[in-house]
Every structure is written in structure tokens, then in C-alpha cells.
């Protein structure tokens, strides 16, 4: 059964059309990736999915509920969340406060102490820095907070927007490891990445995007075998 069903959505920024009739779906429990060049429209897709920007046409269904046009705070309440590009932390709040905001929603509020503990287990570094304000964290630390904050929402689907951006190799592995663990734990994951190598390795299914359109799809191995994809996205 598909948890997320996107059907022919388009998005415009003023006069510029950024997405053209995008359709795809994510089944429950899957790790689906979306790859594509800079400016292909990946971030735009994610924003449209969670209601941060309006769609011009098409529909988005989450778990059978029509979420098109729903404001973002309602969408996330349904159990779908985004770890945004550039982390977007609350800069003046401490690490711990940032995490606690994650449990703002009623449904997550009750078990927030437990979740917090779990997150500190996953990222011990955050526990060390729990009273430091987010703006003074290094890039990698910030990424950990962003992921932790999303987990605090107790979501069913997590969407990641380039989580490995600016991370040291060891952290990149770390992040991918976390993503895989979350996947194993039963979460549905929608991953947008530039780090195509790694992504194709972990993804169950993959969409390729170019100039606002989906131009290819398949399993990791399928795509890795595809010569044009290799050339365009794997480089070197």
C-alpha cells in the first residue's frame, strides 16, 4: 500500500515553473530516494509535499488523506516530516530546546522524554552540547540536531533534504547509517541526495529528476547500470 501518493503536481515560483506534473509514490516502510542535479526541483518537491509551498495542480495523498493545499502544521500532524535543506534550526535555542520543539505536536508530546533519551543515544555528541545554542554548532552537529528534531515528532515518514551536505566522510557514513537504522525500525523514508553513490546503495527505489520533471526511476542497481545516469550523476 502506498503511504505517499503524488499525482501530477506542478509548482510555480511567480512566473517560473519549477515542477512539471510530477508523479511518484512511496510505499509504506520503503526507503525511496530522489536524485538530481542542482536546481532540478528536489527541494521544491519536498516543500510541496509538506505544504510549505502551494501546488498549482495535481494531488498529494498521504495515507489515503488528501493533503494538497493543507497548511504545513496540519500535514506534519499526520505523521510526515521533513529534515530541511540547510537544517533550519532555531538558532537561539539550545540543542535540547530545539529537540523539544520537535515534540510540539500533541501526539508526540507525551513521550518526549523517552524519545529525547533515544536521540541522545543515537547522537551522544548532542547530549554533550545540549545547553549550547544551535547557532554556535558546527555544520555536522547542526545536522544531527535537525534529524533528532524530526525524530522527536514520532513520524511515520521522514523526508530528508540533502542530509549529507557539508558533512565529513565519517559523518556522512554516520548519517546514512542512522537513515538505514530508521528504515529498519520501520519508518518510511524519502531521501533527497546529491551523494548518489551512497544513496543508490541504500535506497529500495529511486527517482531521477531533471529540470522539474521525473526523468527516470528504478531500483538502485537498475540505475547504477544505466549509462546515462552514471555519466550525469556519478561523475569522475
Amino acid at each position: 500500500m502506498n503511504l505517499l501518493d503524488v499525482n501530477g503536481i506542478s509548482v510555480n515560483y511567480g512566473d517560473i515553473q519549477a515542477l512539471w506534473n510530477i508523479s511518484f509514490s512511496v510505499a509504506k516502510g520503503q526507503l525511496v530516494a530522489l536524485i538530481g542535479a542542482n536546481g532540478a526541483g528536489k527541494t521544491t518537491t519536498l516543500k510541496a509535499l509538506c505544504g510549505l509551498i502551494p501546488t498549482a495542480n495535481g494531488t498529494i495523498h498521504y495515507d489515503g488523506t488528501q493533503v494538497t493545499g493543507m497548511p504545513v502544521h496540519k500535514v506534519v500532524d499526520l505523521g510526515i516530516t521533513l529534515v530541511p535543506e540547510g537544517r533550519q534550526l532555531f538558532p537561539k535555542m539550545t540543542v535540547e530546546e530545539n529537540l523539544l520543539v520537535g515534540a510540539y505536536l500533541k501526539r508526540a508530546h507525551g513521550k518526549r522524554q523517552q524519545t529525547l533519551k533515544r536521540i541522545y543515544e543515537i547522537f551522544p555528541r548532542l547530549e554533550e552540547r545540549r545547553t549550547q545554542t544551535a547557532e554556535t554548532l558546527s555544520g555536522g552537529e547542526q545536522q544531527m540536531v535537525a534529524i533528532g528534531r524530526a525524530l522527536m515528532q514520532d513520524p511515520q515518514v521522514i523526508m530528508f533534504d540533502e542530509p549529507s551536505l557539508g558533512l565529513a566522510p565519517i559523518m556522512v557514513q554516520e548519517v546514512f547509517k542512522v537513515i538505514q537504522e530508521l528504515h529498519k525500525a520501520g519508518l518510511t523514508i524519502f531521501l533527497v541526495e546529491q551523494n548518489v553513490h551512497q544513496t543508490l546503495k541504500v535506497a529500495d527505489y529511486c527517482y531521477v529528476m531533471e529540470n522539474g520533471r521525473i526523468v527516470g526511476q528504478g531500483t538502485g542497481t537498475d540505475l547504477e547500470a544505466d549509462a546515462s545516469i552514471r555519466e550525469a550523476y556519478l561523475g569522475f
Partner: protein
Amino acid sequence: MKTSRGAAILAIITAALLILPLVMHDTFVLRVLTEGIMWIGLAIAFDVIAGYTGYLNFGHGAFFGIGAYTIGILMMQAHLPFWVALPLGGVAAALTALIAGIPTLRLKGAYFAIATWALSRAIQQLALNVEFTGGPDGMRLEAFLNPLFFYYLMLITVGAIFLVLWYLLERAPFGLKLKAIREDEEGAKALGLNPTMLKMQSFILSAIPTGILGGIYAYWITFIDPSSTLGDLVSDQAVVMVVFGGMGTLFGPALGAILIFAFKTIFWAYLSDFQLLYLIILGALIAISVIFIPNGLWGTLVKRKAVARPQEKPEPASEPAALSAVAVPEEGN
């Protein structure tokens, strides 16, 4: 207005203003024009620090008042002739800017706005409390009520201010450097710009013409007191004119000054029974213009033209990777 057509229009307006008094002898109209021109000068001088440099000076009126009082004191107590006193008004304003700027220009955004406001209030209180300003009674200057003299003096002064500022801000590197400070002070440092210095220069550059205009005002109106010359009037009007006209340009504030002043004057002269309505309309006008023309009139007009120009296809922005918030269209519409 880079084109020669713009320059031509400007030249025609200037010429018209220069010969106007020769064909028209209405002293009231001359007075209104004199004041209108003064406001153009005040608005563009304000825009140097506010629009080009990004520091909203809510104490702009203090420079005006300092200029006015300098001329008043020098003429009435030191018995200096007007022409000697006038430049000293500019000097006094420059000194004030220097002393006030050292600490305040370290402040950012709202802090700067409010600190400068506090400073102007402090100067007003000072004028109320010392002897040589006449305290709350104010000060009367020798009446020299020659409308032509003041009209031409104002026209030439503001014309000169305009040219100097235009050269410095639009032609010379200085203006671009200020804009760099406005956009990102920290980043500008890496490019060899000394923000402290540039801000100070721009503050002083904004103060000098304001002080000189204050001096002319004092001699022209013949009476100055703390509440009228050191009050909020000049700052408030300058803000409104500049925002309405369009910040960070010279033509915008000039346009804003002309329109707001004209609106005000027409209301004042011919709809005098509706003064309170005037407040309501002015307030509403400001609020509405902020909503619908956030770039000001000039900014909006010029933008229109730019969009109409075909050769440049604007490239869409992508999200910055920083923590900075990028505005997103309203949810749900």
C-alpha cells in the same frame, strides 16, 4: 535615470524652477516651493545613511536642529554674518555625527534606530536646559524676510546637495561600497572595506546637508525652539518620504518628498477644516503604501521598466543553504 532623457528632464525642471520667480510673484507659492525643496534636501540626505547604508536614523532631526541652533547662536550672540555662520552649521552637524556615530554606528537595526532617537531626544532636552539656546522659549533671529533670497538659496543649496550626493553615491565607488555595507557588513570586510569608516563617512555625509538646511530654515523662519526644530518632525517626515518614494536611490526620496509635501500642503491650505482627517489619511496612506509598494514609488516604477526590458531573463533563486529564513508564499493559497 541613466539615460540622457532623464538628464534632460532634470535640466528642464531645474531651469523652470530657476526662472519661475521671475514670471510668478506669488510669495506664498514661493514659500511653499522653498519648503518643498528643503524637504527634498532633507529626504535625500536622510537616504544616504538610511537607504544606501541601511542604518535607519530616527534622530535625523537632531542634525537639522543643531544646524538651526548653530546659525541662531552664531548670528544672534556672536553676531557673525549669515554666510559665515551657515557653513558652520554644517560643521556642527558633522561634529555631532562624528561624536554620536562612534558609539551608535556599532549598533544594528532597531537598536541603531532607537539609540539615535534617544540621542535626538537628549539633544532636545539639552537645548531645553541650557541658557544660551533660550531654553523652552526658543530663539528669535533677525527677520530677513526676502522670499526670493530664500527660494534661490534653498534651490541652489539643495541642487548642490543633490549633485554632490549623486556624484558620490551613483557615480563614484563610494555609493556601491555603502550598499555593500548595507547588504552584509561582515562579508564586506573580507573585500577590503572598512565598515566603521564607511558608515562614519556616510553618517557625516548625511549630517552636513541636513545641518546646513537647518541653518537656512532658522534664518528663514526667524524663530526656532526645541519642540519644533529638535522634535521628531524632521525625522518622521524624512522616514515617510523616503519609504514612500523608495529607499537607496536619490530620485525616490525626492519624489517621495514632493508627493508627501504636496499632499500635506494641499490639505493644509485648502482643507484646513479637516486637519484630523489629514492625520487619518496620511497614516492610512503610509500603511497602505507599505503593503502595496514596499519598494516605494520609484523602486516600483523602475522595477516595472526593468521587467519590461527583454534582454535579461531573471534567473530564479534557489534556497540559501544558511539558516536564514526565506519567505515562502502564504500557506494554503
